[in-house]
């Protein structure tokens, strides 16, 4: 049966159902935002934004903060993985951000001012709604919103409301993975002002807690690829340009609030340094023990020099991260840091299937040829990046520094920094495979290269004993051995060699790292590899410990990797701890991390899990709704993950429990 149009459909519905249900159905079918949708279809950001501000529903509830989403007014997904300049909004009235001179000749400036006009409309509507409500604190909230237009925030609480409001506007306009930036930094003046005024730390702590709750709301809408992948990261602590490590009582309150939140979102990245106090590291490890995946440790002693060598001078001290871990300069950068993914394993597979293997007589020839195939993947990434086009985002352009001065939209290179990042996957598997090939084929000569190809082709069928042998020997990648680290560095430096001269249309440079969210997605079509990985099995997760029996060795390994030039787009040590082990050894683990900073690891995150609990949760999801795990670079509710992610975590937890 064919239904030609909506009227027919409705008539049919009427014929079958009661009047009440018909009414409900009619309401459902009514398009609430026709003007908005029309502008959206035309791709007109400012038009859409105007209708959004003018028409969207404003819901005011009893909460401490005002936050309202209207899912009938969502703009198309666009800019991703960027942190706006919250300080700009906290320290200025919105109207101060306008172009005040004659802008009749400049389209960007006109669009820019029109978006500010629209926000003004929305703010005024919020004030009206507040006037009509009868909540106790409505006068205070009205003042917050009227201040937003003309002056800086006047208190810590008001500052948090502004952060929430700006974030909400960005999410509502389709931006994804909006970071929260260095909260302790941009909130610091408001905090000490309030303390001076006599407001208690407990009160401020409560303000933070309720802010975090509001930010956690709608996490299902904010999630990107998987539920939980929201990118709402708070950056805490860090080295100041004078070299001093700063983690003050505000940083502590924020960390404490996240620790006690028992929620996936927001997450914390803690910037660390060898000069940080032991107590701060103890607090961080204490937070990890709570099992919500925070904080990720980010080593300033490696990252800041790497950023500076890359050409980012003083601003390097102000780095934040993208959704997961990729360093960028928050509020000044358009770096979408996950623009392509290079698979080292795919390059090796291509090589095995395209080369005339019998002509390769020694390992160094083999490795050099392999690099040619890596180059092919690099070109593919570069081309993909050059083809990326984003529709303009005037809202983000207001809150990213540089766009105003350059009078250029963020997607056209208006930001101060426009470097682009890509990720890589499978380096662990590839390093292992290359070393195995070197040993079995070229040194011991037990196998021919053609066997390596057959292993891929037949998924180890006919090579069962080899499979057992490869499985049994564990992983090379992650061992602190000069041959292994130098091979890893050779591969990474090769990628630098082939990417360092590339420049994007916005004069941005390329950067990459060896951590990627794609260890499952990219592995699905990859045949068996010579590290003992069968067809379709996931790649190694970042630099991880379950196949290396010593945490210190793994940390030392991470310290031997060269992250300079452009190799700093996220390189994470991913450590699994069993809860009982971590609880018993809290202080020793904390010391180990501190010494690890000296050794020079790049970043470090932990999964505090036991395989028994994960298995139970997989079987009885209804009882484990609050169980949180760390997946690539975010925290997620375990039971909401796809099965293959659950299984991988169980497998890793089990391997970890056997090894340690």
């Amino acid at each position, binding site marked *: 049966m064919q239904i030609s149009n909506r009227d027919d459909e409705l008539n049919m519905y009427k014929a079958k159902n009661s009047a009440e249900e018909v009414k409900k159905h009619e309401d459902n079918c009514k398009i609430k935002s026709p003007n908005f949708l029309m502008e959206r279809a035309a791709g007109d950001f400012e038009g859409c934004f105007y209708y959004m501000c003018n028409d969207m529903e404003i819901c005011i509830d009893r909460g401490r903060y005002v936050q309202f989403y209207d899912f009938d007014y969502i703009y198309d997904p666009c800019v991703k993985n960027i942190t706006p300049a919250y300080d700009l909004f906290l320290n200025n009235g919105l109207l101060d951000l306008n172009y005040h001179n004659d802008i009749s000749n400049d389209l960007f400036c006109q669009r820019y001012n029109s978006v500010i006009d629209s926000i003004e409309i929305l703010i005024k509507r919020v004030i009206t709604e507040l006037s009509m409500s009868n909540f106790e604190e409505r006068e205070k909230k009205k003042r917050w919103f009227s201040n937003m237009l003309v002056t800086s925030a006047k208190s810590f609480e008001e500052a948090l409301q502004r952060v929430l409001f700006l974030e909400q506007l960005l999410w509502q306009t389709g931006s994804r993975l909006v970071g929260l930036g260095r909260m302790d930094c941009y909130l610091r003046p408001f905090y000490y002002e309030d303390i001076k005024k006599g407001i208690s730390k407990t009160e401020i702590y409560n303000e933070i807690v309720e802010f975090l709750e509001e930010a956690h709301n709608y996490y299902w809408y904010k999630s990107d690829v998987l539920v939980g992948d929201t990118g709402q990261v708070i950056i805490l602590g860090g080295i100041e340009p004078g070299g001093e490590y700063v983690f003050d009582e505000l940083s502590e309150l924020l960390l404490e609030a996240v620790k006690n939140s028992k929620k996936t979102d927001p997450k914390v990245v803690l910037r660390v340094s060898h000069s940080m106090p032991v107590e701060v590291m103890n607090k961080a490890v204490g937070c990890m023990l709570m099992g919500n995946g925070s904080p990720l440790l980010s080593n300033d002693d490696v990252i800041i020099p790497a950023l500076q060598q890359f050409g980012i001078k003083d601003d390097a001290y102000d780095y934040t991260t993208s959704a997961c871990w990729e360093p960028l300069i928050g509020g000044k950068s358009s770096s979408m840091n996950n623009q392509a993914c290079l698979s080292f394993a795919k390059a090796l597979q291509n090589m095995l299937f395209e080369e005339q293997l019998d002509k390769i007589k020694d390992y160094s020839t083999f490795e050099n040829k392999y690099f040619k195939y890596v180059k092919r993947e690099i070109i593919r990434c570069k081309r993909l990046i050059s083809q990326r086009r984003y529709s303009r985002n005037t809202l983000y352009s207001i809150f990213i520094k540089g766009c105003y001065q350059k009078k250029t939209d963020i997607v056209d290179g208006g930001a101060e920094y426009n470097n682009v990042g890509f990720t890589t996957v499978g380096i662990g598997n590839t390093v292992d495979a290359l070393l195995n090939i070197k040993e079995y084929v070229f040194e011991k000569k037990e196998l021919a290269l053609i066997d390596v190809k057959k292993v891929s082709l037949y998924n180890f069928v006919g090579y069962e004993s080899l499979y057992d*042998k490869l499985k*049994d*020997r*564990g992983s090379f990648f992650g061992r*602190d051995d000069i041959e292994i680290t130098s091979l890893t560095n050779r591969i990474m430096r090769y990628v630098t060699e082939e990417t360092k001269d590339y420049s994007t249309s916005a004069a941005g440079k390329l950067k990459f790292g060896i951590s990627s969210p794609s260890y499952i997605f990219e592995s699905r079509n990859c045949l068996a590899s010579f590290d003992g990985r069968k067809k379709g099995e996931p790649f190694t997760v970042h630099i991880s410990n379950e196949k290396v*029996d*010593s*945490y*210190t*060795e793994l940390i*030392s390994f991470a310290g031997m990797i060269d992250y300079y030039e452009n190799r700093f787009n996220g390189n994470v040590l991913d450590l699994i701890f069993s809860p*009982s*082990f971590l609880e*018993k*050894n809290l202080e*020793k*683990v904390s*010391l*180990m991390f501190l*010494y690890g900073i*000296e*050794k020079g690891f790049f970043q470090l995150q932990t999964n505090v899990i036991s395989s028994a609990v994960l298995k139970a949760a997989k079987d009885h999801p209804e009882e484990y709704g609050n169980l949180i795990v760390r997946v690539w670079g975010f925290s997620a509710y375990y039971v909401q993950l796809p099965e293959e992610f659950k299984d991988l975590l169980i497998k890793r937890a089990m391997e970890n429990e*056997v090894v340690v």
Partner: protein
Amino acid sequence: MCFDDGPGIRTTVFLQGCSLCCPWCCNPETQRVHDESSCDENHELYDLDDIKRQLMKDLVFWQNGGGVTLSGGEPLLQSRDLRELCVYLKELNINIVVETSMFVPTMNLDDLIPFVDLWYVDVKILDTNMCKIVLHGDIKLFEKNVAYLRSKNCKIHFRMPCSSEYTLQEKNWDRIVSFLKNYSNYPVDIFPIHNLAKRKYLQKGMKYIEFETIQADKMKQLCQCLMNNGINASLMNL
């Protein structure tokens, strides 16, 4: 790397070869002496320079009292070679711990006494006959060696694995209590034998006897019993 074998963060050197054959041994691959077939690919034969080089990678982690733990196998069977390693480590002021069963010639102790900061001494089967039959060890030697360490003012820390099949047999338990009474100033950790190494045994085609796991309550009782006898005992969580 290990967090349990002594103060701070420690790096443990497992030495090949042991004169005993404890049924619960968790590193069975280290039992045999001078038999290359027992060294699988993960356990290569190292020379001293290799060991030094490997150890030095962890140097940074030994701040705050951490250091090297010599374990096995029975490390004291190779005391001559270890002496050289210890001299080297002590020049760098690194904390050294030895885990030993004490069934070794007494002269071997002399090699290491000047360097070792802490001796973990296993207390297992002290009944003369059982000791001979189960462990193939001479209990006189054990007692003599421990007394010798004490006479040299060494820091000793006893460790006692508990299994109802062996160490907790009444005859043996009485011997243990009377032995430890002589050392009431020295700390004693007691812990139940665990079945962690089962996978290892099966992998290597060795026979594995499953142990009855002793309940926490029973362990508390045992600990209390030792304390009532004036022994400085405590329960160790594994």
